[in-house]
């Protein structure tokens, strides 16, 4: 990272005063109501025969995948095999690209998110997303960034301070920024910005969190912090993470899906299943080759 100064501040080095520790403990267990927000708890996400086009080009074909409730599912595969496209299909970000089209069903707790009469905004609120490049809003302070979801989706909350603290604790950023919540979000280091983006996504209490290579722009230390964060999010939300880093997929995920695209053909899922299984005894030889680093 360009800014190593703030990254050196390891959260474990910061010692809490008794009041601060009590506040953290309280915030961790607190239940903050968000009026008009998503229903409570994690959700199961199921893709049935999902296909995606950019213009006339079919880039993803026939993906059947279940992302179980409260688990971490990793999508792995070489570049250009449609992992990110699939991820964007899951919260209706795909349709924002001009010329993009899709087919199949994406079921969120059994309901098709592409059903007529379903608002994309409502779906995106329930299925949060963290992008490859950290993108906090530069015109907002750290606190405003965390609360941006409420403002943008016009939600109300009874205890905003508690929500900020809780979201930042969950994203593993609270101790580093609690004294400067009013400073601009853009002033943080890259790793901190990414965790701020995670906190921002978590603040609306989504049922699912999609992560599109969240660590590819980060250094190893920040990557470890984000991975710890993902680990702590288990059970709170369903996490779907796209990663190029196979060790990372192995470390953080419970389930794994291997995507592949042969030359000039659309991407598809070669194999999916429990992570341990995929990484040790996959059924398909291409999966074995990939996870052992023989290609890709």
């Amino acid at each position, binding site marked *: 990272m360009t800014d190593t100064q703030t990254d050196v501040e390891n959260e474990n080095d910061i010692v809490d005063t008794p009041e601060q520790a009590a506040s953290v403990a309280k915030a961790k267990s607190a239940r903050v109501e968000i009026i008009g927000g998503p229903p409570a708890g994690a959700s199961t996400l199921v893709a049935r025969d999902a296909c995606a086009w950019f213009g006339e080009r079919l880039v993803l074909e026939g993906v059947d995948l279940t992302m179980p409730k409260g688990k971490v599912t990793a999508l792995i595969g070489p570049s250009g095999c449609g992992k990110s496209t699939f991820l964007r299909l899951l919260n209706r970000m795909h349709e924002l690209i001009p010329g993009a089209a899709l087919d199949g069903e994406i079921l969120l707790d059994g309901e098709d998110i592409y059903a007529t009469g379903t608002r994309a905004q409502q779906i*995106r609120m329930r299925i949060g997303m963290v992008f490859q490049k950290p993108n906090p809003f*530069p015109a907002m302070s750290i606190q405003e960034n965390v609360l941006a979801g409420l403002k943008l989706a016009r939600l109300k909350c009874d205890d905003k301070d508690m929500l900020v603290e809780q979201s930042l604790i969950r994203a593993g950023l609270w101790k580093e920024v609690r004294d400067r919540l009013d400073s601009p979000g*853009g002033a943080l280091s890259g790793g901190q910005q990414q965790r701020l983006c995670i906190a921002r996504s978590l603040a*609306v209490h989504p049922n699912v969190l999609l992560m599109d290579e969240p660590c590819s722009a980060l250094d190893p230390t920040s990557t470890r912090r984000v991975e710890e964060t993902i680990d702590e999010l288990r059970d709170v939300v369903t996490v779907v993470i796209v990663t190029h880093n196979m060790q990372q997929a192995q470390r953080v995920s419970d389930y794994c899906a291997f995507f592949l695209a042969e030359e000039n053909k659309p991407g598809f899922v070669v194999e999916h299943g429990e992570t341990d299984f995929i990484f040790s005894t996959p059924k398909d030889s291409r999966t074995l080759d990939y996870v052992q680093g023989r290609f890709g």
Partner: protein
Amino acid sequence: MTATETPAAQAAATRTPPAPRRRAPRRPREFTTFDVWILLGSLVSAISLNWLIFYRFTVGASFFGFIVGSYLTFLVIFAAVTADRVGRLVATDRVMTVVVVSAAAIVFIPLVLLVGYILVQGLKALRPNFFFNDQAGITPVMPSTSGGGYHAIVGTIEQVGLALIESLPLALAAAVFLNESRSKWRRPVRIFVDAMSGLPSIVAGLFIFAVFILPFAKSGNPLFGYNGFMASLALAITMLPTITRTVEVVLRLVPDGLREASLALGSSRARTVWSVVFPTAKTGMTTAVVLGIARAVGETAPLLFTAFGYDLMNANPFAGSQESLPLFVYRNIRKPDISAIERGFAGALVLLLIVLVLFAIARFFGRDRSKSKKRASRVSFSGLKSTFTPSRSTASPAKEASPS
């Protein structure tokens, strides 16, 4: 932050003491005092040589030839001496530097002369009473310091203010349409805006005259006669493309990642523009507005058949002809008496000062005030400059050729 500085401090403390060898810092691109002497020496010898050639050995040569000859000789001498001292590579670099710097100076001279001339001429008639008096009771025999341009200043402020109120919502809407929508009509609209920015400003005035003033000439309704409001409409037409294009550029500089992030949080597109794109581009948009004002404030041609001009104070922009600073300048400088011409120059000076103040305001709002220089990607004027400098010469009074 103390935790972070400690390792660096320790490293500094444990670093080995400097080696006994005396260290002389080397700066390969340094331009030393000696080089300055070479430069001056080359200049003096070139001028002397050309003086001999043009004024002693030949007769009837022009001064212009002397200047050009001196300059070229200077370059040759400077190149030869530098090449002899530090080699051809460095000499080429220095000669090119000198050429570029002198070209910049040549471009700068007319600007300085122009501003200087207006300053000298304008100060003759500019007294504090210029800001508190109109032209009531002024006869041609009175000195130029009597009377003032108070009515023109008020007229300018009212007309430009109204023009801003009329054009800003339209310009913002157009810029948002051009940059945030996915309509297929964006291209035609962009071409139209570009064409509009090339519209001679007198045509804007003529348009208002032909559409709003002339057809209602016999109705006697003061709203559709010569007045400040009609002038503001004409000015709004000239401001609209400037503000639209500048705001559009500023909006384009807002990273797409922020829009995606906002949409992914469950925001609507309209809300994204309002709560994410606008705040991020705030400083640049302020600059765009000030640039638009600065463009309109110096326009004369659109006012000729709309505000018409008036020697007395008329604070009501909706009835009766009104003065404005450019009109004041235009009307006074055409008068035959010296004192009126001097008053015109005073008006020009005040106009220059107003433009200067506006640009100072734009600079003030345009600077990036967020502490983190590295990361904050607030879109500011600094991002704009690269795209817009060539056509934005409004800072100088030598404005885009407007037929006024």
